């Protein structure tokens, strides 16, 4: 491992360690809203980083990350429901279920050229929603599933546990992004993203390359859906496969800085609290204001916030 990798890993672990101490300093029962917002930021970092691996590094735009997240959410909801497992133990299966869906989608769509992958991810979310709605005996259909928020060993399922779990999941996502960003694969992913034909002409296996980005991306998106479902305690197809869950990671990544490890973090840390603030201050017009904010970001910050900072430094 290179020295810069060690440095980044140590910095990441230090940040995670320090941020994990927050519930020890601030009582979560006295400030539940703060921890809800922090939880949302962590999940947004997780979901946006997962999108960034695929869309940012590999240039394969997914319009249906809600599909992977929703499948992960249903894995967390249905395993305890049918097998009486602990919802917490079901969490890794959220990632695995999303990865299986990714193998099906990518296995076929990545053999085609052009916009087929983007379209098939869009279809995945919609097909998954229809399957969940139709298969009532297994999924409870549109009625939804209640997920009991059971303790994890000695820890109560409170704001602190959700905050710390989501924080470390976001940390794992960042570690994955940093690892890819510093590996040889980064060059192959970039090449395939820019021109699959040119990359193949040099010996790069474009299909394998794209799958190597899709699988971790889907796994992390599934985990994001799983922890969100656990936190909410209830899951229905409408919320699990909501289009906004596909759009949000794209916006956060583009605003923060696409194809950079810290872009999704910057996007999430700024936009999620900003959205919460606007929602609390302007309950009727917050989406309009959020839209204006996004237009301003897109208009004046090419390459995202990180891109602008880099240009200023130069």
């Amino acid at each position, binding site marked *: 491992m290179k020295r810069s990798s060690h440095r980044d890993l140590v910095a990441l672990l230090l940040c995670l360690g320090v941020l994990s101490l927050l519930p020890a300093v601030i009582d979560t029962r006295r400030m539940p809203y703060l921890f809800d917002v922090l939880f949302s930021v962590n999940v947004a970092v997780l979901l946006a980083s997962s999108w960034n691996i695929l869309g940012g590094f590999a240039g394969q735009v997914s319009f249906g990350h809600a599909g992977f997240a929703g499948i992960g959410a249903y894995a967390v909801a249905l395993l305890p429901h049918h097998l009486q497992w602990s919802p917490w133990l079901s969490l890794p299966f959220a990632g695995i279920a999303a990865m299986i869906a990714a193998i099906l989608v990518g296995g076929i769509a990545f053999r085609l050229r052009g916009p087929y992958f983007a379209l098939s991810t869009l279809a995945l979310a919609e097909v998954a929603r229809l399957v969940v709605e139709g298969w009532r005996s297994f999924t409870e259909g549109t009625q939804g599933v209640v997920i009991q928020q059971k303790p994890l060993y000695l820890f109560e399922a409170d704001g602190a546990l959700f905050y710390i779990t989501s924080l470390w999941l976001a940390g794992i996502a960042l570690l994955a992004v940093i690892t890819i960003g510093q590996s*040889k694969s980064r*060059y*192959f992913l*970039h*090449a395939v993203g*820019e*021109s699959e*034909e*040119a*990359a*193949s*002409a*040099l*010996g*790069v*296996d*474009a299909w394998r390359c794209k799958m190597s980005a899709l699988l971790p991306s889907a796994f992390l998106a599934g985990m994001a859906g799983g922890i969100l479902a656990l936190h909410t305690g209830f899951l229905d197809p409408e919320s699990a496969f909501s289009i906004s869950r596909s759009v949000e990671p794209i916006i956060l990544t583009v605003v923060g800085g696409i194809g950079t490890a810290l872009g999704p973090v910057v996007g999430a840390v700024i936009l999620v609290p900003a959205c919460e603030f606007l929602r609390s201050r302007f309950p009727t017009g917050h989406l309009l204001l959020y839209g204006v904010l996004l237009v301003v970001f897109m208009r004046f910050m090419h390459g995202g916030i990180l891109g602008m900072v880099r240009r200023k430094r130069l």
Partner: protein
Amino acid sequence: MNLMIIENVSKKFGGIAALKNLDLAVEKGRILGVIGPNGAGKTTLINVITGYEKVDAGKINYDGKDISKLPPHVRARHGIVRTFQIPRCFAGLTVLENIMIPVLLRHSRGEAERRARSIAERMLLGDDLHKQAETLPVGGLKLLELARAYAASPRILLLDEPMGGLSQDRMEPIIRLIREMREDGLTIILVEHVMKAVVALADILAVLNFGERLAHGRPCDVMKLKAVRDAYLGEGHA
């Protein structure tokens, strides 16, 4: 000794035949020039050899094996490497990174960088190593495309109009580089419209017309043929 033998290859797009029962052989260490009017099937020939188009009929033998069913990246790893008529350099990467990509498939990052630097120097890109590829002029992009293909360790290099769009003075270094590659033992198929370059480089010349081989032989002999003059060169080249 022939490194590649194209046997009776046909390729149709809809009802139009791009290649018709084409036979060609490429001798090891030689340059085969391929000329012909627009739509003669020159780029299709490169596409079927490199796997970007599947042949409808016929075989492509490379080093004694039929490669007609292999995907492009596997053919490239076997040493069949191409360039594109319009350079497809990775715009968001630097010149050095562009050249490193094929080398990284076989070597560590340190070794890949060392080899890529050496190739860049040879290909007259030594001063542009850290420039983004998108900032290079057309001549630079053509050189980068050539350098990147060379970095993929080809045994046979297929060049699709490497002089296209270049001024006379920009062509000279590319002609010199291609000649040097041949002197290193590389086998080359050169598809080109610039006759001066073809004559200067090709050991054997094949003329395609409507997907068929119109003529084949030494450039000086081929260019004297009336059929070739009528189909492609015009009377001025007689």
